[in-house]
């Protein structure tokens, strides 16, 4: 026994001797904790995930951009200026002079044309943002052209509001890649696809140094950036899936910024003078979708009853406090064209009446699917409880996204609790997905559209969505979106519940962190320590 004790003591002494007293992050390096499990690629022609979107926004300059200095104004990025032809079909972009890629190559019109064509030719998930302009692999070479070294001309081959086109050029697919570098790494005519997955060739504020999936991402500052060198030399983003671990790390100063804290953890940080809590309204929505092909859930009255069986207030005031606010329309508030009416609240009596009218006075049994991560499990359990009050008995299954989405895409869900973020800042980005379903057949497989996934088909709403996208007059367009959203709010299978705010915890010496309304409007370049 004495020996044992001695061994234990020795072990402890050794352990303590090895401890670095207080670890502080180096001054020229920003260390950030974030859940990065969603990254699957860092090629701007393919990135469609939150974290990936944020990273490429800091690596690549886009044709059009929102800048951290003014997040509300769409300005030229790689393009210095643009002109729209009178018929609204041709957009001429003038490339800003004097820009260079990380490789040192100058940024030219040829790079811009190559980048946009590449999106179409690779035909990855986000390419639909451009294909809706009538661009395809066959015609894109003639529709997207470099007319001289610094001028690009884009021709729209469909009826589309030019404003919407310019908004789309601000999306991740509008990133400009370094043609020479990318083509030098081409393999078997893949336009550098394999290489660009985990390398970078941009002209943005940072270049990608390493990406170790589910471990860390290291970005290196670009000293020649057109707005001047970023405030820190390196940005290290550490994959920390656990919010409680993130909180500890930021409290101890092991990281400078923690990104995924839950409201309860934020509450626990109150009174800690070493950290500052930044709150940034986001365009992300949390919603409940019912499957319209389901024999019970497909009934309009049941759909409506669902809206009254959600304890919006209760959740927002408890486990969602501070991070989520009630929002019930498809385009988030605070953005152009938003619709902020919130007609629904928990009303079991009303819901019961609606259910009785639909022929289900005693409720029914149903499955709820949602994501494993917080707060989806809590939201689902709260909904489960309020459904039970109307006699609806439900069973919850939590899955990782990779398991949940296939089910959703195959229309095999009954009730799903999920989230959504727009792809670009224009109401069409959301209405196109939530409300537009041109072909409801199973074989059509319009799996990218939420309306199709829920088997929801409404010709009137379809027409309204298409008309709003084409409308040239801004005032009229705005009004059309209000009307469309009001209708969708009442009749769709979607009960939009909440709009999210990011709550980032920053060490108090960290300044200049900017996080805009969308997931890819997070900027590292102004950060100083």
């Amino acid at each position: 026994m004495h020996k044992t004790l001695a061994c234990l003591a020795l072990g402890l002494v050794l352990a303590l001797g090895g401890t670095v007293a207080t670890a502080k992050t180096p001054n020229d390096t920003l260390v950030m904790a974030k859940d990065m499990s969603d990254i699957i690629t860092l090629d701007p022609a393919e990135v469609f995930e939150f974290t990936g979107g944020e990273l490429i926004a800091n690596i690549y300059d886009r044709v059009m951009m929102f800048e951290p200095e003014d997040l509300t104004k769409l300005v030229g990025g790689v393009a210095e200026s643009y002109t729209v032809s009178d018929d609204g079909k041709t957009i001429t972009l003038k490339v800003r002079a004097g820009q260079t890629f990380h490789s040192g190559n100058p940024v030219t019109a040829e790079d811009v044309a190559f980048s946009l064509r590449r999106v179409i030719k690779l035909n990855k998930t986000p390419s639909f943002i451009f294909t809706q302009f009538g661009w395809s692999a066959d015609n894109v070479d003639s529709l997207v052209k470099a007319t001289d070294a610094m001028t690009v001309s884009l021709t729209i081959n469909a009826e589309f509001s030019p404003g919407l086109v310019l908004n789309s050029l601000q999306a991740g697919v509008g990133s400009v890649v370094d043609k020479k570098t990318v083509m030098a790494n081409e393999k078997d005519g893949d336009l550098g696809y394999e290489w660009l997955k985990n390398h970078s060739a941009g002209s943005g504020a940072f270049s990608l140094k390493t990406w170790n999936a589910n471990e860390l991402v290291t970005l290196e500052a670009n000293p020649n950036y057109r707005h001047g060198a970023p405030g820190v030399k390196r940005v290290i983003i550490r994959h920390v899936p656990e919010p409680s671990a993130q909180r500890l790390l930021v409290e101890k100063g092991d990281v400078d910024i923690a990104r995924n804290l839950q409201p309860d953890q934020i509450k626990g940080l109150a009174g800690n003078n070493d950290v500052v809590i930044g709150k940034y309204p986001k365009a992300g929505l949390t919603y409940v979708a019912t499957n319209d092909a389901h024999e019970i859930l497909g009934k309009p009255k049941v759909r409506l009853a669902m809206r009254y069986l959600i304890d919006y207030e209760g959740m927002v005031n408890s486990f969602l406090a501070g991070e989520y606010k009630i929002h019930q329309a498809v385009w988030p508030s605070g953005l152009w064209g938003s619709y902020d009416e919130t007609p629904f609240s928990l009303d079991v009596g009303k819901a019961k009446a609606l259910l009785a009218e639909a022929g289900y006075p005693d409720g029914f049994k149903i499955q709820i699917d949602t994501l494993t991560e917080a707060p989806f499990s809590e939201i689902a359990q709260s909904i489960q409880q309020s459904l039970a009050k109307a006699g609806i008995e439900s069973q919850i299954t939590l899955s990782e996204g990779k398991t949940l989405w296939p089910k959703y895409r195959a229309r095999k869900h009954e009730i799903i609790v999920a989230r959504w973020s727009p792809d670009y800042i224009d109401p069409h980005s959301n209405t196109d997905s939530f409300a537009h379903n041109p072909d409801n057949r199973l074989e059509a497989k319009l799996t990218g559209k939420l309306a199709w996934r829920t088997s929801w088909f409404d010709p009137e709403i379809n027409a309204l969505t298409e008309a709003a996208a084409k409308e040239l007059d801004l005032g009229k367009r705005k009004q059309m979106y209000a009307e469309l959203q009001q209708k969708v709010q009442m009749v769709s299978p979607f009960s939009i519940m909440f709009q999210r705010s990011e709550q980032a915890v920053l060490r108090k010496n960290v300044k200049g962190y900017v996080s805009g309304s969308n997931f890819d409007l997070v900027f590292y370049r102004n950060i100083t320590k």
Partner: protein
Amino acid sequence: MAEGVVTEAGGTARLRAWLLSDSPESTFHARCQRFYLGWRAFRTNPIAMIGLSIIATLVLAAVFAPLLTQGDGAEQHLSDRLLAPSAEHWFGTDELGRDIYERIVWGSRITLYIVGLVGVMVVPIGLLIGTVAGYVGGWVDTVLMRFTDIFLAFPRLILALAFVSALGPGIENAVLAIALTTWSPYARLARAETITIRNSEYIMAARLQGASAWRILYGHIMPLCLSSVIIRLTLDMAGIILTAAGLGFLGLGAQPPLPEWGAMISTGRQYILDQWWVAAVPGLAIFVVSLGFNLLGDGLRDVLDPKSGSAG
């Protein structure tokens, strides 16, 4: 205590005499006697008795859960979230304002359900494969044992994980996955036992009387293997509970709002810094119960297998 009984009631005294008589009159009598003697040895083993009382408490909690609690542990009170342990909420409340004490009590049913179901699945499979392999021998033995060895060689937790991800999360699937990864040692054990008794005179006699192979296996060999298999199962129970909790912790076991202890730790993890009790209490419950099974198993082995050499 035993001495007190004699003077008290003639009935119990007679029962005791019957249990201790030198010449058992029937197989049943003999079995009862063996059981009673085992129990007397077992009772003097303090470690085993602690284990037994823990398990008894677990069973009682599961059976009388409705009497021990006011609700069913699923009722949410969003205004009473994350309250610290107090007179009103003995173990505090969780992230949805549910009483953790109630959830622990109701969770005992899930724990018992899991170990029970795994036991019910594993023992027959293991016995069948092991005894058939041991009794028939030859190529059947080789094939069955190679098959068993593959499962033995498999990293068990990873296999269970993979099974549940394939079957989809849920308590039944977790049980199935655990069973699929635990049966192999039982087959080995049963085979070893079968080989030692295969050629015993009494099996020979049964064979000479024309009993079919199946009858011999079912009627004679399996019952003899049962006791060692049961001991092994008791010793494994703790492992089963821990594996189930691990699956629950990874979100692959019981789904919300079921109060499965491992899943409770998993959600409690979010609150560990400010509300430690949300994760600590269910962890403690798992610990106590699996300790109970281990103590019981250890004691049982002492009693039934004196060779292991531990004195109580």
